[in-house]
């Protein structure tokens, strides 16, 4: 119980006393996953600078070529460089993944806090959330794309909206249990206003589970985007995304399986890495799991 006095740093002021347990060691898995993810994200960010060819330029002479010095992963049916396309395709996929995660977590957090703390609001909000949960994201995407035309924003909205109720439920459950804590009642007795109690006392309790949930949403959003693009209900076909590249490669699957293999490999590696990091975050942040392992 007793320890040396610790200065309160700015980070601790924000996140409080989340500390790694003594002697905690990460396995090889999360480290490899982090490295893979860093490589994928960095190459996607720097894509315009590092790709050997313009991913859009067609070259009828070079159709469906195998790997060569000029085209390390070969070319597709229009003679475009597969490597350049796969690297560039990551930009849209990651943007949608991270965007969907951030937006759904932020909106979900706000709604969840209100819903968990105010009983009257709760009854109404949760019924709306129930109905939102009943919408399948793929059907919503097809509908939105049919209405607004294929764009990143339609896809992102289609993926984000059905994720929000999941975040709301998570935040609400955390708030419901935390608001019974005596320190929250003490804050009420000290005359703190409701928004202050919500944001300063209750919100920090949700950070750990939200980090974990956010990584899962990110992974599933990337996957959903790929499925939508593959089905033709995603981002417009000129823009390379992992799903688009695979959809185009499908026709030539028997002739040249590498057209699907490379974007597929990137997609799988990316999602595997994100999920692995999510699991690690859950283990580190959840004290109960830590205890169970001990």
């Amino acid at each position: 119980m007793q320890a040396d006095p610790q200065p309160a740093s700015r980070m601790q002021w924000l996140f409080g006393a989340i500390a790694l347990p003594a002697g905690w060691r990460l396995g090889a898995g999360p480290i490899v996953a982090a490295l893979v993810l860093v490589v994928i994200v960095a190459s996607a960010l720097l894509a315009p600078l590092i790709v050997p060819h313009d991913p859009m330029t067609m070259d009828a002479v070079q159709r469906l070529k195998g790997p060569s010095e000029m085209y390390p992963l070969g070319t597709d049916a229009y003679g475009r460089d597969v490597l350049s396309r796969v690297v560039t395709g990551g930009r849209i996929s990651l943007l949608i993944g991270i965007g969907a995660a951030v937006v759904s977590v932020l909106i979900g957090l706000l709604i969840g806090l209100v819903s968990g703390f105010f009983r009257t609001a709760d009854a109404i909000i949760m019924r709306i959330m129930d109905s939102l949960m009943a919408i399948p994201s793929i059907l919503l995407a097809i509908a939105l794309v049919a209405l607004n035309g294929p764009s990143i924003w339609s896809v992102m909205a289609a993926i984000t909206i059905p994720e929000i109720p999941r975040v709301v439920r998570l935040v609400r459950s955390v708030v419901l249990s935390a608001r019974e804590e005596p320190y929250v009642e003490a804050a009420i007795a000290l005359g703190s206003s409701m928004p202050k109690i919500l944001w300063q006392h209750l919100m920090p309790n949700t950070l750990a589970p939200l980090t974990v949930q956010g990584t899962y949403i990110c992974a599933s959003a990337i996957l959903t985007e790929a499925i939508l693009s593959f089905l033709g209900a995603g981002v417009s076909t000129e823009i390379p995304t992992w799903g688009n590249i695979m959809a185009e490669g499908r026709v030539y699957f028997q002739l040249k399986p590498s057209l699907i293999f490379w974007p597929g490999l990137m997609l799988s590696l990316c999602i595997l890495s994100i999920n692995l990091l999510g699991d690690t975050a859950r283990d580190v942040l959840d004290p109960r799991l830590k205890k169970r392992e001990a």
Partner: protein
Amino acid sequence: MLFKTRTFDEAANVLTITDLTVRLAGNPAAKPILDGISLQIREGETVCLVGESGSGKSVTSLAVMGLLPKGALEVAGGRIDLEGRNLLEFSPQAMRDMRASKISMIFQEPMTALNPVMRVGAQIEEVLDTHAKLPAREKKARVLDIMNQVHLPDVERIYRSYPHQLSGGQRQRIMIAMALILEPKLLIADEPTTALDVTTQQQILSLIAELQEKHGTAVLFITHDMGVVAEIADTVHVMQLGKLVEHAPVEELLRRPREDYTRRLLKSVPSLTPRAARPVPEGAPVISVDGLQKIYGSHGVFRKTKETLAASEVSFAIPKGRTLGIVGESGSGKSTVARCVMRLIDPTDGSIRVAEKEIAKLSRRELRPFRRHIQIVFQDPFRSLNPRWTVGRSLIEGPLNLGTDKDAAMARARELMKLVGLPDDAVDRYPHQFSGGQRQRIAIARAIAMEPDVLVADEAVSALDVSVQAQVLELLDELQAKLGIAILFITHDLRVAAQICDEVVVMQHGRVVEHDAAEKVLADPKHPYTRALIEAAPGRAWDFANFRELRTA
């Protein structure tokens, strides 16, 4: 006071612990958790293991049961002999057979120790199943027999009940039935009555004593309550920081404790003799509650739910600088009153006047400026401070709400730390760096920071060790003398109430049954329920702090 004076010189040793040492697993350099513990329990004897939290009482019992948490604690040396065989050499399989058939255990919290989705009869049968093969009819007969022995009413019905359908005392009886059905040689009872009300506690203690006599079981009884020790112990072992400091027959120990630690422990047991009466100060009371009522479940939207009267017709007033105690068992409505007065829940009816302002009917928003006049300290010091905030940030939360400048509030927080007996640099630390008693001091400082007229202490010392309890009570008294705060003290513990209260309100089933000056209530109780409460207080005829019988008794 009648102590047990049986001698056990001829009785056979059931359990002999020799030089038992337990360490943190994988850390031989750390200080041992148990350091050379030796004790014996003879047939039919009740050995009490007393000590404050962290003294190693429970670790001792877990070591005997072979239930030390794997990978966290390990036995580093010594022997545990049960009827001549060293338990530490047993395989996990053999140890499992020993449990329940030779040694069994009852725990503090019977609700968590029982399986909530299994009928209690089946749970007792399960113990029987793992250790003996019996036909179903005979099995049930034995279960009903043991249930009768622990004096459960209507055993056929309870046999078919789930744990949540039983009261706390009944659950603990079920636990005892489970522990004793195989007639073990040794029963380990780890704070079995701590979670129970005093009147229930008395029944359970006499039940354990009765069954022990009948079956000749040896009992290792772990407790922190000296009153309980005085009631049931034959021999007492006092533990401190993993060591046995003293052991003696109970009367010897209570009359002539040899070690300083034992003397300190006994001295800090609050006496049942009420404090000397203080003159009632002039002036209007700072808080007056009149006809307070709280009904739960009165307004269902779709169906009429059954109403529960949590508090009714509660009236009292406290003058400046005085303390009023509300005493009662669980479910008596004492905490409901505290929470209504704090307006953490809304009273159904009645009036609450704090600092000459009626607050019972104010809306939450209108109420906020008046919150500073009345502050609360909660029972559980581990949950009443935000674990993510530094102590300083918790302390200045209230003053900042009142519009105090942040630097001024922080300077005041440092002063308050000194006032409650903590170093002023404590404001930069986090709650987990403090012990329970220190955290309770911080919680008191946070309440005092608002300069309230009334302080509500809701079981504020119930979760603390006796020595810490005495210090916190002293602190409250000091602060009251210095600042003239009125204190509303909610407690189930008559000893604590006697120490701090000027006036006592006794509640039962949501109603006030007795309300008078503390010395009158404690020395000359009028209501039968008050009398029952006082009679059930364990060790009430013994003056622990002076090592002698209570003079007035």
